[in-house]
Structure formats: C-alpha cells, structure tokens
C-alpha cells in the first residue's frame, strides 16, 4: 500500500490537507446516469486531483437458499469520485459523484446524509436514463437543480426537458459544460440559490 500521496494529488499551495482554519465542511452531490459527465464536472472544480474510492456493497441476491434460510450475499464494488473546493478561509465544499443505480441505495443513504442538495446532470439525448436518478433524489428528500451537460447549447430545449422530467416550476434548469470551471460553478450557484429559496 502506498501511504504517501503522490505530488499530483497536492493542491496549488502544495499540501493535500484542508487548511487548519476551516471549521465547516459542506457536501453537495453530483448525480446522474452512467457517463453523463459527473467526474468531468467534479474535475473542473476540484482543487485536488479528484479522488476515487470504493464502497463495498453487500446485498442479498435474488434467490434465497431455502436449505439454510440465509440469503446468498453478493459483494459489489462501486466507485465514488469526489473533489474538494476551499470556498472561504473557514469553509470547504466536497463534491461527491454518485452513481444513479437503484441497486446502490445503501450508498445513496451514506451520500445523502448531510448533503446540502444535489446537482443532477442530464444528457438531453438520454433523458429516460435520468428517471431512476430523480426517483432516488426524491426518495432521500434532496433538493436539486438540473444541469444540462451538453457540448452544444443548441440541443438544450428547456421546455422539453421540464416536460420530460416532470419538474416542479421552481426547479432550476441550467446549461452546463462540465469541462469548464466557470460553467460548472454557475450550475452549482443555481443550485445553492435554489436551496436558499427553499430554506427561506
């Protein structure tokens, strides 16, 4: 095991560590279906090289061994990507990229706990793949905003997306190029403004 983080994992000020002055750590989830751009989004904002870790899921498989009365267990590995952003002297924001599959609900519980809200990345060409992710967001009572990750803003039809995803009128829908830091920051700003409205 390599316990010494490589130099590529250091931040601009040469350390992997959070500043001693930081008193608050906040968390926002970046969610969406497979390959929608979650890792790219996190990478465009993170001050550290995005880290990947894994969560072991032990879950009952579909069949039960009647002889023992004990469900067979299947262990699945799920990769989590996350990044960090020091926003003020005393506040860091963690961005966690979360896979949107129903079968990782245990993981969602872990991720959702303590999250301010979720940014839902959507590919306008694969809207139907977003449905199960919205179900999970609703299940965990997370507030969210939609960021349409498209390389071409011309494919971004807000009305169509609102109708297809059956969004509430006040759910923000913004365009986002996940490769671009400003664009990604703007999407998070839309989410946090929405959270402030809801907290009012």
């Amino acid at each position, binding site marked *: *095991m*390599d*316990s*010494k*983080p490589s130099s590529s*994992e250091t931040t601009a000020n040469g*350390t*992997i*560590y*959070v*500043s*001693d002055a*930081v*008193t*608050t*750590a*906040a*968390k926002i989830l970046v969610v969406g279906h497979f390959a929608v751009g979650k890792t790219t989004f996190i990478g465009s904002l993170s001050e*550290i090289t995005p*880290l*990947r*870790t*894994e969560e*072991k899921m*032990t879950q009952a498989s579909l069949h039960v061994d009647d002889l023992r009365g*004990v469900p*067979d*267990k299947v*262990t699945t*590995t799920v990769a*989590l990507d*996350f990044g*960090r*952003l020091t*926003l*003020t002297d*005393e*506040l*860091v*924001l*963690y961005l*966690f990229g979360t896979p949107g599959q129903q079968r990782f609900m245990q993981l969602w*519980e*872990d991720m*959702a*706990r*303590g*999250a*301010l*809200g979720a940014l839902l990345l959507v590919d306008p060409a694969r809207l139907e793949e977003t449905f199960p992710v919205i179900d999970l967001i609703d299940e965990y009572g997370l507030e969210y905003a939609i960021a349409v990750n498209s390389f071409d803003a011309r494919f971004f039809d807000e009305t169509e997306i609102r109708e297809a995803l059956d969004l509430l009128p006040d759910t923000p829908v913004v365009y986002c190029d996940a490769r671009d*830091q*400003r664009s990604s*920051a*703007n999407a998070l*700003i839309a989410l*946090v403004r929405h*959270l*402030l409205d809801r*907290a*009012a």
Partner: protein
Amino acid sequence: MTGPGEEAPVTSDFVRSYVITGGRRLPSADDLALHSLVTLAPDRELPPGAGPEVRAIWELCGGGFLSVAEVAGHLALPVGVARLLLTDLFEQGHLLRRSEPTRAQLADRETLEKVLHGLETLIV
C-alpha cells in the same frame, strides 16, 4: 456481512476487508460522515500492534485535516473500512474531529450563503 463459518463465496477484496476489520460490522455514516474532517490528536503514540492500514492512517492523518473520504481515497481503502478504523482511533482518543459537518436538515442560511459567495468568486 457474512459471519464466520458461513460458506459464502467471497472475493479476495472481501477477505482483505474482513481481515483488516477483524470481521466486525462496519459502523454507519451516523458516526463519521464522508465529509467529516479528521486529524491525529497531538502527542499520541501509535497503538501497539497497529496493523499496516492503521499505521498508514496514522502517518497520513498526522499531517493535517482530511475528510473521511479523502483518507479512504489516498490509502485505497474501501470507505467503510477506513471509517471503521478511524472510528476506532477516535474512540481511543487518537483522532480529532472538526465541528460536525453540516446536515441537510440543519443546512442553515448562513452556510448556504457562504457557499454561494464562495462559488461566486470563481466566476468573476
């Protein structure tokens, strides 16, 4: 988790985690959230008999504050295993935790406004 004696098919990763944790149940996120910030307490001695993973955590966390998820990521440990080992060190008084991370239910306006203002500095 499968208990000892059960003939469940296991992967090598599974065995590895099982050995590191001594087969104990992994603590829930209630104890230590993924974004909880932790660091080694000052003037502590490495517990005798500490395994390689605990020694690696000791070395990493001696340098400053990191989130639970970052500790897992840097040491290539599954999050649940890292959390268990960190919880042990915390309960033994070896680890300090920054003030509790924000919880969704308590996400106060002040924190949200700070997050907002911080993000806005990125786009000017």
